[in-house]
Every structure is written in structure tokens, then in C-alpha cells.
């Protein structure tokens, strides 16, 4: 009789455990931290920039145009090697409405804030910095080695911010994210499949769990960061670069003048490169996005781009503003690109990025968004 009661209890216990465990898969796939920020939704609350004396000529002209335009409710954390460097930055950017906060870290770094981490919106107003497992060439490039530390530096300096190793190799610029999904460049596939994960499918699952959003792995794209060749615009729209459009706009210029835009190798209007942009457009369409095209001049070196996509989008009071890169000497491209953004309802604020694009990045590459409202 006693053993019967025990057996009945065990059966009931197993049944109850079975019911509970059947519900557990939701727990297994529960996103562990937060949700990757959209590039195009929400008002900017906090930004992060790097500033170093060595790269002052690259970044300061851009910060001097961009920072004074930010509203008073925006805080900009300036990660600098030391307090003197921050003072130098403060002097260069002039009077600001936004709050500029020094984060002295005591080590070298590059000026490119975007690639160091991906911001996730956590519980409440908290932010989680998803950091790559390592920086490419960080072991031998002191500035890049310092880059690998800035996520932790920021978390230590700013309340409500934590940093964690994402367990994968990536640059923040490899992700372009809207409200529903993150588009991820093929570089992340190359850097991780058979290194940190076995298959692209495993990578997608890992990324989805980390980023808290659907992941769209681009299988074909220009070999560059995502924000150089595409940008999300909200309301299911993606803007993708179109070299052919830029070529047509520049057609009255001599070839040498066009090549001089992308030193040292010249502009790349080849069919092969055009097809990579077309592939991106097709993949975005397949993901259900409406694709809009914008002129772009890619360089034959695969890195130097005149791109109007590498901007920062701020959505507030029902209005979307794009801080759009512009470049000296290409007024026809600047105007055409601004028209594209305006036709999609954006207020366009041009930021001259002539000082930086020959180092393979523009505004979006210099500025990372920590929190949005």
C-alpha cells in the first residue's frame, strides 16, 4: 500500500514536471539581455564618440558641425585618452546645447566609436553593450587594442550601462537595424563560421538570441560595413546605394576628376561592384522592405566610399531627421542624395565628412548611439 502511494506520487510528480518542462523552451529562447537599438526609431538620448589627438583632423571637423545641432536633452559621452584631450575637443566644438561628458580612459584608441559595440536596450532605461570577442589586429595595433576596452570603460563610467562579450567576432558597423530586424554583413559570416560557430544557421540563432531581434544575414554585399552601402529609414524602408546613379550624375566630368574622388585607386563603377549593391537591394526586398536607391561612389580599393547612407537618424516629435554626410567638390551628388532623403520625409542636415571618408568612414562610423527614447 505504501509503495503504491509512493508510485502514485512519483507518477504525479513526473507528470507535473513534464508539463512544466514542456513550457520551458520559451525560457530557453528567452532573450538574455535586451534588444538591439533601431537606427531609425526613437529620439536620440545618449551618443558616444571617441576623440584622440592623433585623429583630431579626421573627426573634429565633423564633431564641430554635428554636435552643435543636437538638442539640449541629448548627452554625448566623449571617450578620450585623458582630460587634456577632452579639453581640446571641448574647445574645438564650441558652444553646445547638448551635454558633453568626458570619459577619460587612460589608453589609446581609434576615433571610430561605431564598431566597438552594439547597444541593446535592456530592462527599464538600462543599456547593454554587446562587445565583440576581439578586435581585428588588436594584438599589434595599440589604438585598436584600446578600442577593445572602450565598451568596458563606458560601462564603468555611465550608470545603467553594462558591457558583455558577445562571444563572436564582429564590428558594430556590420549591423544595420530597424524596428524589426538587424541586417548583418557577410563579414560576420566569414569571421565566425567555423571559428566561433559551425554553421550560418547557428550564427543566426546566436545573433538573434544576443540581439533580441530577427537577423537577416546578407550573403552577398559590398565588402564594407553595412552603414556604408545601406541604411534603414523606418516604416519598412531601406535605402541602398546605387553607383550607377552617381556615375550618371558625374557623367559630364573627365574620368580623372572622378577617380580623384576616391584616392588612391579611383572610383569603382564596374558592373561587378554594381551587382553587389543590386544583391543588397534584392535581399532587402526579399525581407519585405521597400528599397529606395541613392547615389554612391565606391572606391576601387573597396574601402573609400562617398556615401550618403553613413548618417545618424533622429526621430522625435513625429519628425525624422537625418544628419547626412556630404563631401566637398561633388555638389550634384550632395543635392541628389539630399533629395532622396527629403522625398522619404526626412529633414536633411548636411555634415561635411570630407575629412574622414578617405579613412574609410563617415559620420555613422564616428558616432555610436547608446540610448534612445
Amino acid at each position, binding site marked *: 500500500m505504501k509503495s503504491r*502511494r509512493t508510485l502514485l*506520487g512519483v507518477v*504525479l510528480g*513526473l507528470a507535473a514536471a513534464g508539463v512544466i518542462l514542456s513550457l520551458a523552451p520559451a525560457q530557453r529562447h528567452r532573450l538574455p539581455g535586451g534588444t538591439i537599438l533601431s537606427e531609425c526609431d526613437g529620439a536620440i538620448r545618449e551618443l558616444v564618440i571617441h576623440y584622440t589627438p592623433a585623429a583630431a583632423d579626421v573627426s573634429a571637423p565633423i564633431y564641430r558641425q554635428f554636435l552643435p545641432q543636437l538638442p539640449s536633452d541629448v548627452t554625448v559621452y566623449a571617450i578620450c585618452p585623458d582630460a587634456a584631450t577632452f579639453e581640446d575637443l571641448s574647445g574645438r566644438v564650441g558652444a553646445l546645447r547638448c551635454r558633453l561628458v568626458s570619459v577619460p580612459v587612460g589608453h589609446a584608441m581609434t576615433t571610430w566609436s561605431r564598431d566597438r559595440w552594439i547597444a541593446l536596450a535592456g530592462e527599464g532605461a538600462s543599456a547593454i553593450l554587446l562587445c565583440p570577442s576581439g578586435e581585428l*589586429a588588436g594584438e599589434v595595433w595599440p589604438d585598436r587594442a584600446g578600442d577593445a576596452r572602450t565598451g568596458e570603460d563606458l560601462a564603468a563610467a555611465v550608470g545603467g550601462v553594462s558591457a558583455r562579450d558577445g562571444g563572436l567576432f564582429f564590428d558594430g558597423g556590420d549591423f544595420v537595424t530597424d524596428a524589426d530586424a538587424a541586417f548583418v554583413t557577410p563579414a560576420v559570416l566569414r569571421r565566425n563560421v*567555423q571559428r566561433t560557430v559551425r554553421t550560418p544557421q547557428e550564427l543566426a540563432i546566436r545573433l538573434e538570441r544576443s540581439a533580441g531581434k530577427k537577423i537577416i544575414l546578407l550573403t552577398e554585399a559590398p565588402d564594407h560595413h553595412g552603414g556604408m552601402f545601406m541604411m534603414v529609414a523606418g516604416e519598412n524602408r531601406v535605402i541602398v546605394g546605387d553607383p550607377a546613379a552617381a556615375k550618371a550624375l558625374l557623367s559630364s566630368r573627365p574620368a580623372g576628376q572622378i577617380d580623384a574622388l576616391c584616392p588612391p585607386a579611383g572610383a569603382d563603377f564596374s558592373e561587378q561592384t554594381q551587382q553587389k549593391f543590386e544583391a543588397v537591394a534584392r535581399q532587402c526586398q526579399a525581407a519585405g522592405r521597400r528599397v529606395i536607391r541613392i547615389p554612391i561612389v565606391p572606391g576601387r580599393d*573597396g574601402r573609400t566610399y562617398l556615401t550618403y547612407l553613413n548618417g545618424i537618424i533622429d526621430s522625435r516629435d513625429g519628425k525624422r531627421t537625418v544628419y547626412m554626410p556630404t563631401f566637398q567638390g561633388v555638389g550634384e551628388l550632395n543635392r541628389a542624395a539630399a533629395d532622396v532623403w527629403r522625398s522619404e520625409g526626412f529633414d536633411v542636415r548636411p555634415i561635411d565628412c570630407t575629412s574622414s571618408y578617405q*579613412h574609410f568612414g563617415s559620420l555613422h562610423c564616428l558616432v555610436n548611439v547608446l540610448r534612445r527614447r
Partner: protein
Amino acid sequence: MKLIDALHVTAAAAGTLLITLALLWPATVDAVDPAGAKIVEPTLTVDGWTVAMRSDKPSYAVGEKPTITLKCSNPTANAVEGDLQLAMTGESPASRMSRMSLPPTSLWQGNCAVSLKAGETREYVVPVDKAIPANLLLTVRLLHAKPQAATVNARVAVNAVAMSLGVIAPPKPAAPVAARPTPSAQQAAAVQTPLAQAAMPRR
């Protein structure tokens, strides 16, 4: 009596429930985040047989020539043949100001013809006939390329894996910043550790 029975059954059920959940709770299974896992030997799968690639050393000095070993395993019931291609590429930042390195350039290419009986495992050693150069981040890619059937343009389906070669830098003046110790130590344990050497050129 009935109350005692009910209490006995409840106690047995509760105990069983707790033990079962403790053993099988999925969060426990998932507690170790795969984020920490690193694949030491990149493995290519070709029509059911596999090729695991490894280098003879975890890191090299400038001027050394690496040797790549391909461990080929054929668990299928049929003999297989394949032509594997290897390529070593190098890349480096254009300047200290660069946001990213320039696209990789080809440094060496090689081939390895593989023939395996059913169930056979065999190692092929491929010497890289190229001395490790300075100032480059090195990657070895292993590819199996075969024409894709029924494609209009006879495109080639490429199945590839890659690993980075660690390179030990020659002595150099103290850098202003040392690499973050923890990740470097973790990465050093993996064959695919990306390591290059020497200071980057400044534009």
C-alpha cells in the same frame, strides 16, 4: 488514514517534481553560453566527408613557412575523391587612422587531391611555400569548389572554411598600450587566433 495517504502521495510527487526539474531544467542545460565556445579546427564538410584543417604551430615567426594538415574522414559507404584548394591571404590597415583594413590580398595558393576509401580517415600535409611576411594579418582558406549542376552560367558553388595564423612579432619598442589580457589569453588557445605583428604604417 486518507489524509496520511494524500500527504504521502503529495510528498512523493513534490520530491519527484523537484528532482526532475533540477535534472532537466533547460536553463541549466543552456547555462553555459555557447558564446565561450571556440572551434579549434575549422572543418569543411563535402558530400558527407569532412576535412579538418590545422596548422603545425599555434604561431609563427616572420620568415617561417607554415605547414597545413588536412585530416580527411570519410564515414560514408562509398569511396570519395575531391580536389581541395588552399589560399593564404594577408591584410593590414591602410594607416593608423583607418577604420578597417584593406581587402585581403592573395599570398599563396595550393591544391590537395583527396582520395578516400569508404570509412577511411587520412591526413594530408600541405607545406605552404611562402614565408610569413611582416605587417599582415594572415588567413588560410580551405575551399572545395565544384560546378553547380543546372545553373545557367555554370556558377561555382564554393564551400569554404578559414583560419587565421598567429604570427609572433619580433622585439619592438614598448607600445603605449598593451592588448587586453583576458581575451588575448582566451584567443591564444585557439588555432584561429588573429595575430599579426609590428607597428602599422602611418599614412
